């Protein structure tokens, strides 16, 4: 009973020539929220599907609620809730019918009518699945994952294709799940989401863990280091700004038109930057001082080039 919700060590999964997951370790404690963060093709969905028992593994140990999903799937599945990527339902089934079907598979389900309503699907309860919008299909899929009162839920990109209101609702739901003691493993490529929801973030790339920790651990690599970022016309020479700043400050232009000053950012530094910009005849817009964001960490670790 005290086994962690999910415990993965040395997981390897290959598809023909490609290695999707390459020696991954993962641990989700009971009642916690873990976000698996990574670019497309990093191995997030493969990892989740191995944990759900949909995919076998080439090597490594996987225990979900103390069970091996590869051999004990039928004992495991009644205890977990699954929101697969892209949802899933009969094309012609009405939203409410689909949820009732999934609810009938559980011993003590939540009230499907209430759940449909609270997820904002009351107005399309009688709409066939194939005519629901992408966001509505996602919300139905989330309802299906939750209706059986699971101990552990897997949410694979739960907010993909959702509008901001729906995304906010999902966040509230995840907070409520956590408060009620449900363990949650979610995947996302939205830093904001991982930062807002997760107790523990695991950043993966090319099937390996590249960093992990709480969102604050990950963003506070060096507690004394802060950042000042601002937007101005692109092509300013960072070297000139470095010369004007106190010793130890670094300046870069990570994306054209966005400048980053890293180091000990004090009021003196801020005033130097604005004065320097004034000298150059440019306006420093959206000037912001803070620690580096999870997004900075993520981009540093996984690179800036676009993935297909």
């Amino acid at each position, binding site marked *: 009973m005290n086994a962690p919700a999910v415990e993965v060590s040395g997981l390897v999964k290959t598809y023909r020539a490609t290695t999707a997951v390459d020696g991954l370790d993962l641990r989700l404690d009971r009642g916690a929220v873990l976000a698996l963060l990574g670019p497309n093709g990093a191995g997030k969905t493969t990892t989740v599907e191995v944990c*759900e028992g*949909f995919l076998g593994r080439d090597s490594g140990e996987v225990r979900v609620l103390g069970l091996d999903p590869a051999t004990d799937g*039928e004992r495991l*599945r*009644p*205890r*977990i809730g*699954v929101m*697969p990527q*892209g*949802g*899933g*339902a*009969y*094309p*012609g*089934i009405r939203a409410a*019918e689909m949820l*009732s*079907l*999934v609810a*009938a*598979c*559980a*011993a*003590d*389900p*939540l009230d499907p009518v209430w759940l449909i309503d*609270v997820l904002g699907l009351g107005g399309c309860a009688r709409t066939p*699945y*194939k005519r629901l919008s992408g966001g509505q299909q996602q919300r139905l*899929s989330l309802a*299906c994952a*939750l209706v*059986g*009162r*699971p*101990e552990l839920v897997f949410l694979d990109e739960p907010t993909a294709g959702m509008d901001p209101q729906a995304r906010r609702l999902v966040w*509230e*739901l995840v*907070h*409520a*799940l956590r*408060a*009620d*003691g*449900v363990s949650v493993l979610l995947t996302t490529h939205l830093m904001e989401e991982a930062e807002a929801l997760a107790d523990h973030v695991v950043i993966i790339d090319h099937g390996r863990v590249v960093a992990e920790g709480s969102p604050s651990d990950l963003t506070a690599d060096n507690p004394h280091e802060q950042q000042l970022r601002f937007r101005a016309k692109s092509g300013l020479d960072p070297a000139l700004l470095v010369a004007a700043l106190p010793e130890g400050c670094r300046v870069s232009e990570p994306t054209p038109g966005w400048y980053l000053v890293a180091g000990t950012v004090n009021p003196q530094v801020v005033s130097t930057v604005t004065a320097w910009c004034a000298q150059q005849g440019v306006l420093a817009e959206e000037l912001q001082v803070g620690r580096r964001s999870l997004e900075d960490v993520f981009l540093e670790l996984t690179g800036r080039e676009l993935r297909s």
Partner: protein
Amino acid sequence: MTTEAGRFAPGTFTPAPGAGSPPRMLITHARTETMLTLRNGEQVLLTLLIPLALLVGLSLLDIIAMPEPRVDSVTPRIFALAVMSSAFTGQAIALGFDRRYGVLKRLAATALPRWLLVAGRVLGCLAVVTVQLLVLAAGAVLLGWSPSGVGLLWTVLLVVLGALAFGALGVLLGGALKAEVVLALANVVWFVLLLAGGIVVAADSLPPGMADVVRLLPSAALTDALTQTLADGSAPALSSVLTLVVWGAAAGLLATRTTKLV
């Protein structure tokens, strides 16, 4: 945080996991499958309207030579067609699109065990076949059909066997290929078997060499067996029954290896 408290009272999601009762899961799943098939216009056309139109047309019009009374010769063939339409073509197409829409994975992720996932579909299919045959039988009676009493009992057995054999073939096709390919192939096979597979034209009326091949098809086997029991009032030939069993078993075994969830 105030809205959270308002929307979801503490304890709303407190875990209480567990599987539903198997009979309830089976009935709900089978009922869903049946309802979706009967609600689907194209499926109803394929499984009910076309067989009904052929029943009336072939009984009343002297297009193909058949023993009199024509309706007694036509009805067993139409029953065989109806079973093939539902269990093979209908099942294959439904499965192809269900996989496309991820429903198998969705259901496999619930507490529904694999055997129930199959059993629910089989039961749903048998329910649809029952509805079909009752409607077609009613139509045939109106046209003056007089089946043998013993034949009706055999029919129940043969229809279940035929539905399982054709169903296994339908799952074999629908479980392995892309939805569009399944749609095209399932319709082509249906049409070819209807015309040349011993349904509309009995295997016995074909040239000898071709007849021997056609008799080995599940369509001819089911048609011949139903004709023997319903029209002639005798027991079906063992060869017909064996043909259906072999097709069903072979397709079923192969399907367990080739069927994919998505």
